[in-house]
């Protein structure tokens, strides 16, 4: 019961923060709303029992991605008036809450009329997270290492200063 209430409140906050991140005018505010959404998501993940995923979510998304994002924003800084003039955010994204309300109502009507139920919670499987991550999914770790390598190469190729650039 207690868990249910916390999850409902967190889901509402998550949706609200994501909506504000998409619809906000200034990029800095969008970044902060995104960080708050990450924090809320990690609370939900913790309540569902995914402890390790919650920790990585709050440290990587809410921390690392926000830092990268804000440094990108400051490296490509435009004045406030230029941003307002070029990107008429209010006009573009104004349609979004209406769209979301429609989709939500459609989903609720579909669910009630067809009697959707998700399966009930099953027994906990025998493997702990440790054995699964480090032993069974070793291929994913190899893939992640390759991806991090590509990221490093990308930064060195794309952002190095070159004298012969026009």
């Amino acid at each position, binding site marked *: 019961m207690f868990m249910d209430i916390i999850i409902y409140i967190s889901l509402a906050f998550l949706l609200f923060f994501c909506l504000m991140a998409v619809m906000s005018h200034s990029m800095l505010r969008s970044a902060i709303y995104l960080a708050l959404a990450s924090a809320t998501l990690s609370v939900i993940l913790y309540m569902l029992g995914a402890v390790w995923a919650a920790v990585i979510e709050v440290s990587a998304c809410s921390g690392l991605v926000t830092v990268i994002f804000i440094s990108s924003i400051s490296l490509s800084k435009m004045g406030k008036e230029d941003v307002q003039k070029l990107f008429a955010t209010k006009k573009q994204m104004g349609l979004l809450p209406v769209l979301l309300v429609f989709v939500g109502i459609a989903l609720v009507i579909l669910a009630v009329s067809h009697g*959707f139920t998700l*399966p009930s919670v099953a027994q906990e499987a025998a493997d702990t997270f440790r054995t699964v991550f480090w*032993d*069974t999914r070793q291929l994913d770790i190899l*893939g992640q290492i*390759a991806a991090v*390598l*590509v990221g490093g190469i*990308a930064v060195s*190729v794309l952002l190095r200063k070159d004298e012969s650039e026009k």
Partner: protein
Amino acid sequence: MNYLNSVAASFILLPVAVLLINNILPKQFVEKRFQYLTGAVALCQMAAALSVFFMMDHAGLRTYNFTIFRNLPGSELFGIHPVSLVFLFCIGMVSLVSVMVANRTVDAKKSAYVNLLMTLLIGMNGMTLVNDFFSLYVFLDVVGLSSFVLIAMFRSRRALEGSIKYLIISELATVFILTGLSFIFMKTGSLSYKDIGSAVLTGSSTMQTVLLYASLILITAGFCVKAGAVPFHSWLPDAHQSADTSVSILLSGIVIKIAGVYGLFVLVDLFKGVKALQVSLAAIGILSVVAGALLALRQTHFKRIIAYSSVSQIGYILLGLSTGTTLGLIGSVAHVFSHAAFKTTLFTNAAAVHEQTGTLEIDEMGGLQSRMPVTAFSSAIATLSTAGIPPFAGFWSKLLIIMALWTSGSAVLGGFALCASILTAAYLLRLQKKVFFGKTPEHLASVTEVTGSVRLTEILLTAVTSIVGVFFPFILLYLQSKGLI
């Protein structure tokens, strides 16, 4: 068995080793010899693919599971099938062509090119070797990131624009695939190939069936975006036109096929008998064939015409896949190989023309046939192979696909695919006429034939197309004797 294990493990370990070598040795030494380093990897991959095929045949195995790392017994992480061996051979062949062209066209940033090519190889080999759908997704992301950085590598305005368009649409596809995977995971307990199957679609409540069908739609859409099928093809011409030609060879020759078509192979293999999947793949296929050919008719940039031609040929491969029969599967795999051969020939010709004349707009060219005879000849052979004229390799693969369509009931589609060959011949002949025949404009009067590794590549690829085409019946008889047809 141990020998087979180590040869098969070399698919992943060899690019990793070359990556380390490239970064540890001093930069001057490596940059002078980069083509030997990467060419050696590509040749070893081709040799390994062929030898694994014969070794598996000798040992009588149909599939082979192996592992590289210290692992729990009984949970092999990698698996090889004959279909994935053809893909691995094509990867090696196209990488070799790309390296031989990059020898001439890549002047700066050579070590970055080698690094990115090695990560691309790790990603593509990983995709074809795994036994698990989520690992396929991880390596798919690695392939996407590597190709994205390869396009943007030279930092011109057009290159950055092409790569941004590619990245946005590719990310959309990646999120589609991830969401679809999570819905499948909701029903089964894991995402490895053994646990997913057609049985998944039965015996569940209404909501789960809806979610499973939604996941099939999402995953198919995601892989079709990556393959460049219509109506998701809008990134393909821009990315191919703006990248350096050696990167375009990689993209069109193998990346769209591994990232897109191989995923659809896996999907069709796991969800056999789902009628909706076959029908939708057939619809997307025929739309790609016709729309790609029609759009190619009005282009004026050499590489853009070839890029739209790729869209059209991917449509043929999807048509062969949608029949669900073994003949269609073999036709699609054969078309993957012959498309790799003739498309890389056309891109090599584009590189040769660009090197010698400095332009790629076909309105500015003409009459190059007398001045660049080798290029003109290989381009003509590639055109005949694409249009499906015997005895080249393209004829056999198209024949198998159309026969598969005819025998599995949708004769109308077979007729359409046959008639679309006329359109294929049309736009390619237009390209040939404008570039190689006709009158030479004055500013191109002193153009000479391209020399060195590009000319060697053209000759080798023409030979491959012709020889495989002439000996294809023997290959079919051999496969039939092994019981694979």
